């Protein structure tokens, strides 16, 4: 599995996103720019300039028409994917840590940072998935997190719920129409921040990654815990692989937390676990610092990781990956094709 190294960012990566067809990869970093790349060969397609602060989050709508971004300059921006033009700016009082489109691209959520005088919030905008349309200034919804600020959030199936991960290690389920808090569950160790939430393709369950060194699979319907993956390092990101029942985890101790030895160079690894059996099944080395973000091609052909080292590494899955199966899965044959 020889990776393609994408060199284009000058500072740590914060998020990576594939388009729905997996052909284009978007990356954002603390260097204030967004890059678009062809995932097949790593060729850079273009950049999106305009933010005046570190970028924390990006997302692309399901029709690859609009790109949304959230940054430390207290704005959410909407971009025309094709031309790279910024078509909308929403201003906030604090930094924007996370943005995500719902499954049909008609709504966008944004998670705002907590700061003196301002509580953390999750806001929702109605979106017209057309680059020429006038986008609204009005918020369709504002959820205020008065217990523990949200660090990440995602849309469930049918855009029914907004699922949020919090600084205190808990997960919340909100009614996506009314904003009512329906449930809160201490999924991770107390005060171990949840760094990432990624939904399954059908958005009925999701995976969390936390500083407590665990990644967990929970039901979006009732937050019931389904599976958990134990590692020996603080986790920043977790993704699910379609077509194979695996999960990919990224993390690593920050440089200041480890004894600096040259032997650690390039040893930050993406970890693969079996989604159902919870066993670790493989590791991929390469980064020179913690993995801040991992993403999987929605068609399951490969994955990409973005590091604190400023690099994006794109991997295409090969034979051994596709052939990996437990005996009990083989027994089930066709039935176990879609897990």
């Amino acid at each position, binding site marked *: 599995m020889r990776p393609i190294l994408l060199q284009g960012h000058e500072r740590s990566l914060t998020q990576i996103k594939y388009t729905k067809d997996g052909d284009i990869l978007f990356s954002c970093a603390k260097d204030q720019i967004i890059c678009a790349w062809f995932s097949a060969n790593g060729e850079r397609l273009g950049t999106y300039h305009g933010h005046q602060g570190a970028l924390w989050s990006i997302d692309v709508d399901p029709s690859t028409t609009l790109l949304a971004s959230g940054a430390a300059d207290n704005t959410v921006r909407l971009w025309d994917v094709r031309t790279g033009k910024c078509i909308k700016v929403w201003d906030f009082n604090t930094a924007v840590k996370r943005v995500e489109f719902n499954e049909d691209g008609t709504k966008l959520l944004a998670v705002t940072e907590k700061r003196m005088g301002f509580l953390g919030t999750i806001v929702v905008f109605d979106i017209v998935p057309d680059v020429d349309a006038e986008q609204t200034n009005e918020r369709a919804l504002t959820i205020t997190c008065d217990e523990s600020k949200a660090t990440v959030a995602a849309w469930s199936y*049918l855009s029914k719920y907004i699922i949020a991960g919090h600084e205190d290690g808990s997960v919340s389920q909100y009614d996506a129409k009314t904003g009512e808090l329906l449930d809160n569950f201490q999924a991770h160790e107390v005060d171990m921040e949840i760094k990432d939430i990624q939904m399954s393709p059908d958005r*009925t369950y999701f995976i969390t990654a936390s500083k407590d060194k665990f990644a967990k699979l929970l039901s979006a*319907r009732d937050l019931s815990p389904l599976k958990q993956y134990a590692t020996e390092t603080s986790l920043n990101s977790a993704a699910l692989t379609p077509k194979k029942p695996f999960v990919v985890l990224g993390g690593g101790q920050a440089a200041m937390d480890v004894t600096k030895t040259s032997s650690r160079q390039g040893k930050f690894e993406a970890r693969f676990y079996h989604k159902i*059996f919870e066993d670790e099944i493989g590791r991929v080395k390469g980064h020179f610092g913690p993995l801040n973000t991992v993403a999987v091609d929605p068609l399951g052909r490969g994955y990409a990781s973005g590091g604190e080292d400023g690099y994006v590494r794109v991997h295409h899955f090969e034979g051994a990956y596709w052939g990996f199966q437990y005996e*009990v899965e083989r027994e089930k044959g066709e039935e176990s094709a879609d*897990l």
Partner: protein
Amino acid sequence: QDRIEEDKEKGAIVDERRRLLSEWMAYLQREREEVREERRELGLDVDEEDKARAEEVEKDGKVVE
């Protein structure tokens, strides 16, 4: 004797995996059915499987006529 113990252990692991796999498959099936039901209630497009079933029902209806 060690062999037998080892085989027993392996057998237990395989049984446990078999159980986890069936449990997961049952969970997915339940979840997919519930979402399909919710989509139907909301008057949204149902998936291919449902379309096929709907067509069949239609056909059956005609036969009855």
